[in-house]
């Protein structure tokens, strides 16, 4: 583990129960971040999605990928990320390929397509073990308070 939850929380503004990055496993220069989310049986969304048949919602997988993207942004632009700007997700193209269940370790690989001061484009893949469960292209913006 490269980053634990405390370090992640020093960068991400999200908090439980809406923090979906548990650890950073790998950082490849400014090109890629590999993150993990341990999908616990008591996740809040399993209560309704679905009763008796818990499956991680695709939108939550997308949110987890977006949060991992912020870590990649930090790696690329630490001088801005350290000021805790607002991050907003602008556009998502996603495919959901397999269900994610309680107990799974969701591994997220987020790759830099283009990251600039005020915006970023990343390609992301989520997998459980060796199986790809989702792929997405994310576009996000960054707004610093004094803008």
């Amino acid at each position, binding site marked *: 583990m490269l980053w634990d939850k405390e370090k992640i929380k020093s960068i991400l503004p999200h908090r439980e129960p809406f923090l979906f990055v548990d650890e950073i496993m790998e950082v490849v220069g400014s090109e890629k971040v590999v993150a993990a989310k341990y999908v616990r049986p008591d996740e809040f969304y399993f209560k309704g999605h679905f009763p008796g048949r818990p499956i991680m919602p695709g939108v939550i997988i997308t949110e987890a990928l977006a949060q991992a993207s912020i870590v990649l942004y930090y790696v690329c632009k630490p001088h801005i990320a350290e000021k805790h700007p607002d991050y907003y997700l*602008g556009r998502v193209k996603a495919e959901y390929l397999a269900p994610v269940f309680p107990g799974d370790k969701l591994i997220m690989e987020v790759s830099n397509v283009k990251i*600039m001061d005020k915006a970023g484009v990343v390609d992301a893949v989520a997998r459980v073990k060796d199986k790809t469960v989702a792929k997405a292209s994310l*576009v996000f913006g960054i707004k610093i308070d004094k803008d």
Partner: protein
Amino acid sequence: MAANVEADIAKMVAEIIEVPVEKLKPDSDFFKDLGVDSLKAIEIVAAFEKKYRVIIPEKDIPKIRTLAQILEYTKGLNIK
């Protein structure tokens, strides 16, 4: 620059900004005429860079506001 490169770029831009390619006039301003916001503009740049394996410097991005300007910019990049 080959006509097929021009057509490919027009198609790529049209897909991102979600307008039919025939409505994408060379001098239409992405922001004023086509409703492109800053994030879609970045998406166009990123798609362009990925497809043609070039880097567009951040300072050049605001100068590219029309399809004609993209094609003009492309001339300097030796894209075939």
